[in-house]
């Protein structure tokens, strides 16, 4: 294993480690634009130049492999001067639009300028090469060629990760710019990662642009519930509003995040967000809706059924199991089997639900019917009323329609409710309440609340608690975790 001396420290690294990686592991930060740990090394930005003894010129740390006996200096005057000069070159044609640039606050140029340069530009503003600004390329991205420093991270992302290869550097030298085929749009399932990757304000998210200055945002770790992959994410929020979702890169599941997953937060403030109950097609306050639902449940007695949901947390499924027990019905099902596996070779799972494995825990602990048996009982008319989360109910929508069984659904958004639901009760989204989810790899992920639920909207366990109370039973739940008693 090669031993190198980096800023006086002796490091022993694996063969093939680059100077930049070795420095990073030793806690020495080397500035970079084009280098990205998950993309191929390009070495074009020159920001990571370091001084290596016996080498006549400075070397790029990102592309220089550690060799035994190498003596590297990342803080010499020569390196400092090089960083300043590289920045001067990179900023030569950069427009002076920081005040109206959405990248401001998380911009590599701003940060490095303050850290390594602070030099006055020797290049008059009127001599700058002007380029096309604000080009909407695809449904999610805006490109500003003038701000681009041609690091080609976006080009490499499209050719190496999504393998769609839409982008390239066109023309040469001073004329070069990032472009794609005329008339084509940048519309792959992962396009928004490009806005994250871009170290400057060239690529920005059309969804997030101008919604919030980044320095106002607070970051809360959360988990994507868009499919069984269960990517770790980070919600950026301020004053009770989520503004964007970003990936939390980790070795187990994800470096990136798909575009659909990023848009998941939109349901929180969507026009169809439910804050009240629904009876047939009429809006109604939660309490009367609960009373009405409870009456129907009592009517149906033994013919009532409870369906768990792979879209609900383990705790809320457990609360559903308790409700079924309180109702003394045997018609309960936590059996959801989806084919799992990464569909596109990147992140998107064949299983569209985030918690089929979590529901299976309930099946193991509390038993219940298989989904086919549940279906058969619904078809035979043995089940006259189904209590279910909306998306799980949608799995049985044909059977529900054919049998005419009443559906009492729980939903966060009106769009999820299957047609013909008798009553719908609102519950708080998992951006608003905690819950545990188990992804397709069997990894247990705790979701913590990011923002508060709209006034009057309760977590599902609380809705179930009340529903039980209205039909004369008690689930004795004071928190989501209470439902788990006796399970672990």
């Amino acid at each position: 294993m090669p031993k190198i001396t980096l800023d006086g420290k002796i490091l022993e690294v694996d063969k093939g480690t680059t100077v930049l990686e070795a420095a990073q592991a030793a806690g020495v930060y080397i500035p970079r634009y084009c280098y990205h740990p998950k993309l191929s090394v390009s070495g074009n930005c020159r920001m990571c130049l370091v001084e290596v003894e016996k080498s006549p010129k400075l070397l790029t740390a990102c592309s220089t492999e550690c060799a035994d006996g190498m003596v590297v200096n990342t803080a010499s005057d020569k390196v400092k001067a090089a960083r300043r000069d590289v920045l001067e070159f990179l900023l030569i044609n950069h427009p002076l639009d920081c005040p109206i640039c959405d990248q401001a606050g998380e911009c590599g140029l701003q940060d490095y300028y303050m850290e390594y340069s602070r030099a006055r530009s020797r290049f008059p503003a009127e001599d700058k090469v002007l380029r096309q600004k604000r080009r909407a390329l695809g449904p999610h991205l805006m490109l500003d060629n003038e701000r681009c420093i041609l690091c080609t991270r976006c080009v490499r992302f499209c050719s190496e990760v999504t393998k769609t290869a839409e982008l390239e550097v066109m023309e040469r030298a001073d004329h070069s710019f990032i472009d794609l085929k005329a008339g084509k749009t940048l519309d792959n399932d992962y396009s928004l990662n490009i806005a994250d990757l871009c170290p400057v304000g060239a690529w920005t998210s059309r969804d997030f642009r101008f919604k919030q200055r980044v320095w106002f945002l607070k970051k809360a770790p959360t988990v994507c519930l868009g499919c069984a992959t269960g990517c770790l994410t980070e919600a950026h929020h301020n004053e009770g509003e989520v503004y964007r979702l970003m990936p939390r890169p980790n070795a187990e599941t994800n470096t990136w995040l798909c575009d659909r997953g990023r848009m998941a937060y939109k349901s929180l403030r969507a026009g169809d967000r439910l804050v009240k109950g629904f009876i047939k097609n009429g809006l109604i306050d939660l309490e009367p809706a609960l009373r009405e639902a409870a009456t129907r449940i009592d009517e149906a007695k033994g013919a009532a059924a409870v369906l768990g949901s792979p879209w609900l947390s383990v705790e809320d499924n457990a609360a559903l199991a308790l409700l079924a027990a309180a109702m003394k019905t045997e018609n309960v099902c936590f059996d959801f089997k989806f084919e799992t596996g990464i569909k596109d070779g990147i992140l998107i799972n064949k299983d569209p639900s985030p918690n089929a494995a979590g529901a299976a825990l309930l099946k193991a602990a509390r038993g219940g019917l298989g989904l086919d048996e549940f279906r058969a009982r619904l078809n035979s008319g043995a089940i006259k009323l189904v209590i279910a989360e909306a998306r799980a109910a949608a799995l049985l929508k044909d059977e529900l329609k054919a049998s005419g069984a009443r559906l009492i659904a729980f939903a966060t958004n009106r769009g999820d409710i299957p047609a013909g639901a008798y009553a719908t009760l609102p519950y708080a989204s998992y951006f608003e309440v905690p819950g545990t989810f188990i992804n397709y790899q069997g990894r247990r992920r705790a979701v913590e609340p990011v923002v508060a639920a709209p006034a009057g909207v309760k977590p599902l366990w609380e809705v179930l608690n009340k529903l039980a109370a209205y039909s004369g039973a008690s689930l004795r739940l004071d928190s989501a975790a209470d439902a788990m008693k006796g399970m672990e």
Partner: protein
Amino acid sequence: MAFVTEEFRVKAEKICAKYPKRDAALIPLLQELQKESGYVAEEAMDELARFLDLPYSRVKAVVTFYTMFNREPAGKYHLQVCRNISCHMAGAPGLLARLRSKLGITEGETTRDGLFTLSAVECLGACGAAPVMQVNDEYFEKLDESKLDALLEDLKHGKYPLKG
């Protein structure tokens, strides 16, 4: 108009066979396309990308990187005047100005009769014989105004044998 014809494919396969990877044949094939139609059309880039199984953007990037590829049909004679330092000092600006006024076009344009296209290009690598102009594939060296005028006349009357 199809650029990658059956005939072209046969030729292209032979060129591809010279390289360890098919992608490596990109530039020679682009040159071949340009030789056949005088320029590399958008559709030609598309067809070539499919033929080589490369993304279109890659082909376009290569075509735009090299100024030697014409992206629009060029005239019968493509006059390429070197504008780099040796030629510049030896009088290239004067030659360019003369061509502009004699032909009535500026750099990047083609005369209406389709005979001449004028370009200013980067170093042609013949500094020893500056100023230099390349016409199609041939170099004309140590030019001055009278030599240039004579050459233009010859070209106009189809007297000068040119390769390619």
